[in-house]
């Protein structure tokens, strides 16, 4: 039983990592949602005692390695975003899915601004508004991810 719930969370995160780096055409690539953040957000809200800042940190390192960024950048952003969720999970759970989607959008914006800011300190990069498209797409996919993961969680009765 314990093994099963571990693997369900683990597999969902692996899938999110794969989706995060699946090659897409250049034009579509801008709109790629933050899969890892969205999946982590669900688990943090549902099971804050299982998934929180620690897991987010490890996922951030994985994203850094996969994307070839300086180690620590995405773990920084993900840790803070997930912390915000974990600290307020009781309130957020009572929101409707649409309100949650807005919160996810805000968090995604925070995540992108944080990673941009850290990278801006390291190298001379310039901000383009295009970088914030994932905020919108993350908001759009949130209800579906929420529905899918809640079904998985209930069917496998992960607690």
């Amino acid at each position, binding site marked *: 039983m314990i093994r099963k719930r571990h693997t369900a*969370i683990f597999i969902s995160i692996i899938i999110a990592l794969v989706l995060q780096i699946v090659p897409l055409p250049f034009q579509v690539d*801008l709109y790629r949602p933050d899969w890892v953040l969205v999946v982590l957000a669900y688990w943090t809200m549902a099971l804050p005692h299982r998934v929180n*800042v620690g897991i987010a940190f490890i996922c951030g390192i994985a994203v850094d390695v996969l994307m070839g960024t300086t180690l620590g950048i995405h773990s920084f952003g993900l840790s803070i975003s997930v912390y915000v969720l974990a600290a307020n999970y009781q309130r957020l759970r009572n929101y409707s899915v649409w309100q949650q989607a807005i919160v996810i959008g805000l968090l995604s914006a925070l995540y992108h601004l944080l990673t941009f800011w850290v990278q801006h300190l390291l190298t001379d990069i310039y901000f383009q508004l295009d970088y914030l498209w994932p905020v919108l797409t993350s908001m759009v996919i949130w209800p579906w991810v929420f529905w899918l993961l809640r079904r998985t969680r209930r069917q496998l009765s992960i607690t």
Partner: protein
Amino acid sequence: MDTIFTRGPSLNNRLALALVLSVLLVFVDHKLDGFKSTRVYLNSLMSPIQYLANLPGLLLSESAQRLTSHEDLLAENAQLTNQLLLMSEKLQQFEVLEKENTQLRELLSAPVRTESRKMVAELMAVDKNPYSQQVVINKGAIDGVYLSQPVLDEKGIIGQVMEVGSTNSRVLLIADVTHAIPVRSLRNNIRFIATGSGVLSELYLEHVPHSVDVKEGDVLISSGLGKIFPEGYPVATVTSVIRDESRPFARIIAQPMANLDRLKYLLLLWAEPEASLPAIPEEENSNDS
């Protein structure tokens, strides 16, 4: 999950720990470059995910290959045969010229250029990070890929290897903001440094005085001065020259020869083997006699 994170410290402490660790990692990785060897292991650890992510595209292109019609194949075949003919005709001339060049170089006792080892690699993934321009290729340490190895495609230089995994490696494109490549103009041999702009279709030539003779359409080739890129491969063409006297330098924009957003097959070049020490035995011989 029963990790130390879920039991022990409070949420705030955990966040503080994660942030301190992140900042430490950023510092060690970026400023001290302390993860060079660890990155190889991390990359190898993560390569299954990379292969998994590459699978849909692979299946798609495979099925597209199977569905190509007979006619298309015939047409392509004809076109390729045509191209081969033209190329081999050029090659004949080239061989004669190369021989002549070697002879002349021998006469001048200049070092003779040797043919270097090459290998074709395939693009695995394009980096998702909007702040840096990188691609992942399917050759790694097993195939002998090494750090800062030059990478080309059929049109020109595209970048250099920045991280080596065991079965794949990461290539930094010339258009990345952190990349610069020494070039010279084919027309008049003036040397420049072409730095990336962060946009795939633009390179900047930095610190060029207003008086320098550059024109739109000038071809820039690698000058080989940085000891990373071999000499004489095309890099970019100059697309615009703005001589605004109120600025200290001319603003020159060049476009990379290679279509950096349309890469598929890449060529890895191995540095020429060091023309090692023929002088010493010769000297001994002369002493003997």
